């Protein structure tokens, strides 16, 4: 009996010691991850210096602007928009939460979990995860927030403000990082435990994403007032941190209960989140993920079937096979779905003119064509290396550039053209234009689709093999391969820019029409509009031809180094 007591005391001693070890290993894990990221990004010392200068510059500017505000506030020249700051704080919290969840699942994908778990205590791994994720946050958010706080408090001549603002920022950040890590493990837990969750996860992601899109569109279209959303955000407990920060700032009236509440949130939230994360992580790590993917079913990729019947005679088999595989991949892991979110903001360009004009003006159709075509390009054309990555050495040594690019193009336009044409035709029902003009619009839309996919492929073929890394698809346990760093986004910007240039003729002519210009330089706008549709279609065709040739050449010369 006594020996058990001794043993358990020993054990608790070990437990305490173990905490220190956990921290030490955790720090090491985080440091190694930062190093890996640095090496993967492989920025030159010049680029690093530029980035550092940029950050320092931004911080200095932010500090001085904040100082100016502080001084103005002290002389009562302005008042603090506390309500807006409250809403903004919650909005920032939600944004950070999504970002950190993404980072956490990406990190868990990168870490060699099995190796770590057989080497160090699970707690060390969790600490490592938290430190890695918060490390980047510390650099980005903490530095910005605290330099603003310092500038403002100095301007206010209220040094106590520096302390309270920084305390609030630290609390706010810790809470968001820890919530994100816990949330991310919770999703993993559901995935490993519930076959149903796993099976319907894709559907779940689709539904969640559509709801979000619809919600955004509704707010953008003005159906739900922004004020209401703003009020909800300000009422959330995360907004209490604003009151906590303002405690040390004179001439403000922070609410007492809220500022104490913020402290309470930190005091209670952190231990609860840590405990929850530990419990969830240990469950996740000790269960083998159940496999819901033993479907015992294969889809045919060659020969007959719906697709085969339609295209078989006209398109070469390798080209068709590339497209069919792309669609199958999309069914299993809907990566292009996530691309469709990027252009949603432009819906404003469709809805706003409709509200103003009371009918569907041409400019709305222009935006619609741009959104549909651009999304098709992003979804099916961009990142061709990433989609092929796991089997790239086979693809490169099996099909020619012509077949590959045509297949990718096919996968995009067969999906995109019906949607684009259908959407344009549907909206055009409420437009004042005749049949000819509407049909020309549809033709231009089709041209833009082709153009957008080809440009995207041509640009995407430039991403270097060594820059492709596994990335978890948000909210799912699926992993896709994608380019590390800003390269992908830069290419996306270039692609949309080029597509925008192709759209320029129709954009300008229908903008003129929107402002009721009847003729320009003696030419009636109707003629200009028809002419611009033809011009855009012609532009789209020639740009597509150029991009196609470029993409084929890049594929045929692509190497794995």
């Amino acid at each position, binding site marked *: 009996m006594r020996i058990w007591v001794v043993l358990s005391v020993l054990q608790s001693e070990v437990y305490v010691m173990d905490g220190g070890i956990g921290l030490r290993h955790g720090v090491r894990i985080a440091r190694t991850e930062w190093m890996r990221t640095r090496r993967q990004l492989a920025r030159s010392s010049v680029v690093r210096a530029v980035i550092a200068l940029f950050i320092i510059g931004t911080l200095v500017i932010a500090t001085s602007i904040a100082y100016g505000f502080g001084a103005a506030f002290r002389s009562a020249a302005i008042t603090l928009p506390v309500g807006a700051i409250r809403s903004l704080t919650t909005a920032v919290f939600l944004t950070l939460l999504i970002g950190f969840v993404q980072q956490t699942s990406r990190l868990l994908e990168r870490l060699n979990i099995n190796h770590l778990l057989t080497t160090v205590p699970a707690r060390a791994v969790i600490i490592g995860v938290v430190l890695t994720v918060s490390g980047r946050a510390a650099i980005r958010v903490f530095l910005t927030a605290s330099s603003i706080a310092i500038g403002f408090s100095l301007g206010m001549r209220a040094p106590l403000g520096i302390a309270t603002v920084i305390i609030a920022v630290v609390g706010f950040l810790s809470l968001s990082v820890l919530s994100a890590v816990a949330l991310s493990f919770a999703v993993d837990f559901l995935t490993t435990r519930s076959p149903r969750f796993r099976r319907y996860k894709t559907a779940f992601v689709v539904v969640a994403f559509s709801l979000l899109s619809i919600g955004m569109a509704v707010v953008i279209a003005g159906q739900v007032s922004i004020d209401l959303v703003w009020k909800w955000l300000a009422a959330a407990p995360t907004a209490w941190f604003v009151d906590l920060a303002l405690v040390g700032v004179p001439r403000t009236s922070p609410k007492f209960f809220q500022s104490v509440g913020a402290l309470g949130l930190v005091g209670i939230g952190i231990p609860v989140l840590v405990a929850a994360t530990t419990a969830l992580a240990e469950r996740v790590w000790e269960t083998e993920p159940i*496999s819901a*993917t*033993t*479907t*015992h*079913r*294969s*889809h*045919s*990729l*060659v*020969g*007959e079937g719906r697709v085969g019947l339609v295209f078989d005679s006209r398109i*070469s*088999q*390798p080209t*068709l*096979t*590339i497209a*069919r*595989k792309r669609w*199958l*991949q999309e069914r*299993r*892991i809907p990566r292009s779905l996530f691309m469709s979110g990027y252009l949603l903001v432009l819906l404003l360009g469709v809805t706003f003119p409709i509200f103003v004009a009371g009918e569907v003006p041409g400019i709305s159709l222009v935006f619609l064509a741009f959104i549909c075509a651009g999304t098709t390009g992003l979804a099916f054309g961009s990142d061709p290396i990433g989609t092929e990555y*796991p*089997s*790239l*050495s*086979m*693809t*490169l*040594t*099996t*099909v*020619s*550039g012509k*077949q590959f690019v045509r297949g990718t193009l096919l996968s995009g336009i067969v999906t995109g053209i019906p949607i684009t044409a259908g959407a344009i035709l549907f909206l055009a029902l409420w437009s004042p234009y005749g049949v000819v003009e509407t049909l020309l619009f549809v033709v231009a839309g089709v041209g833009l689709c082709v153009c957008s996919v080809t440009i995207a492929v041509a640009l995407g073929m430039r991403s270097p093999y060594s820059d492709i890394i596994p990335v978890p698809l948000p909210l799912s346990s*699926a*992993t896709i391969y994608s380019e590390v760093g800003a390269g992908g986004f830069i290419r996306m910007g270039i692609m949309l820019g080029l597509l925008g240039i192709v759209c320029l003729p129709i954009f300008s002519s229908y903008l003129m029409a929107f402002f009721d210009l009847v003729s320009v330089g003696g030419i009636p706008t109707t003629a200009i509009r028809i002419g611009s549709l033809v011009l855009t279609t012609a532009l789209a065709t020639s740009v597509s031809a150029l991009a196609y040739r470029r993409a084929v050449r890049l594929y*045929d*010369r692509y*190497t*794995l*180094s």
Partner: protein
Amino acid sequence: MNDSPSITTDRLTKRYGSNTAVEQLDLAIPSGAIYGFLGPNGAGKTTTIRMLTTLITPTEGTAHIMGESITDRPAVIPHIGYLPEKPPIYDELTAREQLEYHGGLCDMAPSDIEDQITSLLDRFDLTDDADDRISTYSKGMKQKTGLIQALMHRPDVVILDEPTSGLDPQAARTVRDTINELAASDTTVFLSTHILPLVEEVATEVGILYDGELVAEGPPDALKERMETGEEGTLEDVFLDVTTDTTYDGQAEADPSGKIE
């Protein structure tokens, strides 16, 4: 076996910065040959294979597959079947889908694709799992899928980088038999491996790469006889002999600094 070479390399060289991975490699491999490409870890085998399969460009020198220059990818690829170190397959597909995909890309007739898949799956004992996602496969099952993929379109030249890695003895024997059959039908097999008995059994010619350079080449029997001892050695003896620093033996004592570590 006919005598026109199916793989030739001429002073083929690949450098990574100051590090030379492959140095002035000259090969002439007749069609129908089974070429065992040996060498210690980091010798440059994979690098050579990646150059032959057009996946990386040589720093210097040239190479031809069935008379086509490796700088012309569209011309080379109809002739080759390639299994890299890591099988090039998609986790989210099933083996059958992956193989149909490959067959479709090679423009094989759909009925031929079905026949080849059925017979090769059966041969490698993978039929029962062929309709499960590859993400659920064991290492060996993935390797088998990659191997079938490299062979199913009946290429002129099959290039295999460690084909038996992760395979059970039964499957390794299947690989050996398959390689022999391929060679009998005049397919050239370029085989990089660390399994010396496999090479001893199947190879018609062996090349040993050491630090990027070809240090021994010839039919296995001839190589075994060339041993300095004069006696018949095994391929392993030859391998160890030509891939250890010859300057090491007996030179420690002659070292002018006189240090012995």
